[in-house]
């Protein structure tokens, strides 16, 4: 478990294996949802997640690899690309400045 303080997040990374398709689609949605918050949303291959990320969202199957790359950054695994409740929770925490457990 990790704690995310929505108000302190500046950079959210969407990670997938190649950074080619899946993460791009989700990142584009999150960019729109978080446009007003000023949070930077980027997509990245899991292997090269930038160290200055504040939170990483990635497919459940890749979560352990993501944690290995950035052990100090909270990783939020999701199952569904579109409309996953875990991702929606992070978005809401950022927009509302809430603290959540992931």
């Amino acid at each position, binding site marked *: 478990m990790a704690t995310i303080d929505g108000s302190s997040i500046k950079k959210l990374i969407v990670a997938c294996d*190649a950074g*080619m*398709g899946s993460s*791009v689609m*989700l990142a*584009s949605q999150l960019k729109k949802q978080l446009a007003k918050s000023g949070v930077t949303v980027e997509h990245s291959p899991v292997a090269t997640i930038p160290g200055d990320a504040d939170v990483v969202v990635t497919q459940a199957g890749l979560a352990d690899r993501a944690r290995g790359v950035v052990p100090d950054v909270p990783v939020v695994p999701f199952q569904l690309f579109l*409309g996953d409740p875990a991702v929606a929770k992070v978005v809401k925490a950022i927009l509302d400045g809430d603290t959540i457990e992931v």
Partner: protein
Amino acid sequence: MSEETTPLTELLAEASIDLDASAASRDEAIRLAGAGLLAVGAIDESYVDAMIDRENSVSTFMGEGVAIPHGTLAAKDSVKSDALSLVRFPAGVDWDGNDVRIAFGIAAKGNGHIALLSQLATVLMDPEKAAALRAAETTEQVYALLESDEDE
């Protein structure tokens, strides 16, 4: 933030669109999506195997009857240019238990495909547009749905 944009009809060429296909399995469907990328010279043949490898490790099923098969990071060298293919399966394909009607094959070398994927995400978030995409029978209908409606 401006992203490099390639015209939609170049990125998703008519030669890479098959609106009336059938496949008996997920892997056959992925091979058809790969064939659409091969048709425009966007990939080496080995990339198609990487697309299947990737699908075996993590699914590219997106919801709304759409999957976006693409290769692994290790296979990026077999990509020659940014391109997408679209294969529609009117009868559906059993995609690891999900019913897939459209597979978008993706080959990405740079970022030219990002605007299109972004628009695809927008379409899939809108159930009516997603249904229209699944029902598309002409390339004009496909292009109309995927033409970005945002100024970027």
